[in-house]
């Protein structure tokens, strides 16, 4: 049975004219008629044409409807994305060109289907993929599939540096840096407004104060970080650090702290009875009172100015330092997420001198403004005491330094992280910025200040770092 006959038999059957066994011969004759067989051939040709057309139409629509995205790019950052036809099931596609990459700094490689380059501009682009299917003739009009491309701006270039309002009642300098001799050691410190504040013309919320009292040989260094969410935090931090220095000034310019000093000596020599206990009591008394004094000063300020105490929220950490004949005594207190670290002479060991108040969420810390910290049973854990022959570095830092340089609290317990920080300060960093910690370096404060501009994605808080070396 030939194709014509087969087709007609099917046609007649569909039209309810089934060809019976007896009429088979007649159908053969019917097929031999040239007009009839030609008509069938034509019908079949048209049918095939329609089927092909439908298939193509359907295929293109499928491709057009298929969701397809490429990853976002970021200006200034090398980018690579592939329009992978195999993966998309577009094996029958012939790409003619990809439009829309003009002036972006990105190029399309038709051979590999990849988009590469480093974007020089940002914005939302609509790329247009022009293609033909293999079954289409070359002269056929190409189809267009649009592919959105987001190019993020380079975040580094978006930061603005707006000066803070110098006429503000509680204005303070955006950046400070200084050095101060502390007996046999030198203090270098810088406190800088973070990019997040510079971007909005905000104030530096960190603060630092120190005192060195030649008469008794004691030094005090206090660092504070005002809470970003508290409107007068900058003033809170300033009051807190000054309060600590002011609290100790009368005693340290007078008789010193004789009882404490004697206990430190006994402690070091291993003499006396209950020395540890008595020493703890002394530290608790002197440093605890200083902390409470800072709290009271803030409370009084809030009361006088009729502002809420929480508007002055600030962390506070401070150390008392003195060189004795037997070595150095370092005493500390802290509330908040600042860090006090003491690195030994040969830099093989580092001691974290304080317990950080780090909440389960970022920024959830404790402040000197919170009365409850003084009543808490863990208040005694806020103090530290270390007696050493000598040391290479004593660091005090706010979270603006701790977050980018150590990231986690666990890292503070690792000597290698402290060694890393020391090497970083010595110039091992991507900008090659160096702080030469030498008593002869008259530029050390400026160097530290410049070093503190280091870039760290996501870490744009105020930064304060004090180093005793």
């Amino acid at each position, binding site marked *: 049975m030939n194709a014509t006959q087969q087709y007609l038999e099917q046609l007649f059957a569909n039209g309810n004219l089934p060809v019976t066994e007896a009429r088979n011969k007649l159908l053969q004759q019917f097929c031999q008629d040239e007009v009839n067989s030609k008509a069938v051939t034509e019908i079949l040709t048209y049918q095939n044409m329609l089927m092909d057309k439908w298939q193509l139409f359907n295929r293109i629509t499928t491709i057009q409807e298929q969701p397809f995205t490429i990853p976002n790019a970021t200006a200034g950052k090398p980018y690579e994305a592939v329009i992978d036809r195999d993966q998309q099931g577009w094996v029958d596609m012939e790409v003619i060109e990809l439009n829309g990459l003009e002036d972006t700094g990105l190029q399309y490689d038709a051979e590999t289907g990849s988009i590469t380059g480093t974007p020089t501009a940002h914005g939302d682009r609509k790329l247009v993929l022009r293609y033909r299917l293999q079954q289409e003739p070359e002269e056929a009009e190409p189809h267009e599939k649009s592919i959105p491309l987001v190019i*993020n*701006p380079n975040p580094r270039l978006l930061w603005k540096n707006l000066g803070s309002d110098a006429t503000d009642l509680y204005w303070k300098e955006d950046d400070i840096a200084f050095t101060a001799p502390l007996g046999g050691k030198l203090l270098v410190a810088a406190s800088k407004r973070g990019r*997040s504040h510079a971007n909005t013309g905000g104030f530096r919320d960190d603060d630092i104060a120190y005192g060195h009292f030649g008469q008794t040989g004691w030094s005090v260094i206090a660092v504070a970080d005002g809470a970003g*969410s508290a409107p007068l935090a900058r003033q809170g931090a300033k009051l807190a650090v000054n309060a600590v220095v002011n609290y100790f000034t009368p005693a340290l310019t007078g008789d010193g702290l004789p009882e404490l000093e004697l206990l430190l000596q006994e402690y070091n020599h291993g003499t006396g009875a209950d020395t540890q206990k008595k020493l703890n009591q002394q530290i608790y008394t002197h440093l605890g009172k200083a902390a409470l004094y800072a709290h009271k000063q803030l409370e009084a300020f809030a009361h006088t100015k009729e502002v809420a105490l929480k508007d002055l929220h600030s962390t506070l950490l401070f150390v008392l330092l003195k060189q004795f004949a037997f070595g150095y005594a370092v005493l500390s207190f802290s509330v908040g997420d600042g860090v006090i670290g003491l690195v030994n002479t040969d830099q093989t060991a580092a001691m974290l001198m304080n317990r950080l108040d780090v909440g389960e969420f970022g*920024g*959830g810390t404790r402040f000197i403004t919170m009365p409850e910290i003084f009543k808490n049973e863990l208040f005694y854990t806020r103090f530290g005491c270390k007696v050493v022959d000598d040391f290479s570095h004593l660091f005090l830092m706010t979270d603006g330094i701790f977050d980018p340089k150590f990231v986690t609290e666990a890292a503070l317990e690792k000597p290698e992280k402290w060694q890393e920080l020391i090497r970083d300060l010595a110039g091992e960093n991507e900008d090659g910025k160096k702080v030469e910690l030498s008593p002869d370096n008259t530029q050390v404060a400026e160097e530290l200040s410049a070093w503190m501009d280091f870039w760290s994605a996501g870490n744009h808080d105020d930064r304060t770092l004090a180093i005793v070396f």
Partner: protein
Amino acid sequence: MRRLPVYLLLDTSGSMFGEPIQALNNALSGMMNTLRMDPQALDSLWLSIVTFDREVKEVVPLTELVSFQLPEIVCPQSGPTHTGQALQLLYEKVGREVRKGTTEQKGDWRPLLFLFTDGKPSDIQLYREMIPKIQSLNFAAVVACAAGHLADDSMLKELTQHVVHLATADSSTLKQFFKWVSDTIEQGNKSMGTVESLTLPAPPAELNLVI
């Protein structure tokens, strides 16, 4: 690095069909453009979008802003508003996605929640059951936005103290609202106490804060 997780819960029930959903899409896209120009957000912001109608869908899982691709938000022509179910999904997501600080891991900033609706929950019982759970997640701020005269402010007041009422869900009002959302997001990564609520920026005149 500290992330700031932000959750958007969007009402896509039948009443949003047509012009409102169009306006919502435009406003979202405007908000994305604003956020992308904020260097702080580019560094730390992570966003997730959940839509709710009869079905609750995680349209975009928690994704960092630099990689975020805004899909077109669509809605059915009719159907109920399963706000409670959306809160249920959110509760699971936050528990799973938001990183808490440990000695080995940096904690995220406290997350923010923005809920946008033009009606009232059809699943009131579940909605009310979820409220204390959502409040236990310690969001830095939960902002509920009621758009149009059919939206029920009092129901939203049960969830949060921050309820914003928009007279209409037209394009320019929604744009204003989502501009304010982006301003609020920009406030989100600051140190604060562990339980204090975020101070919201002043809303534009078009937004009525429901007291």
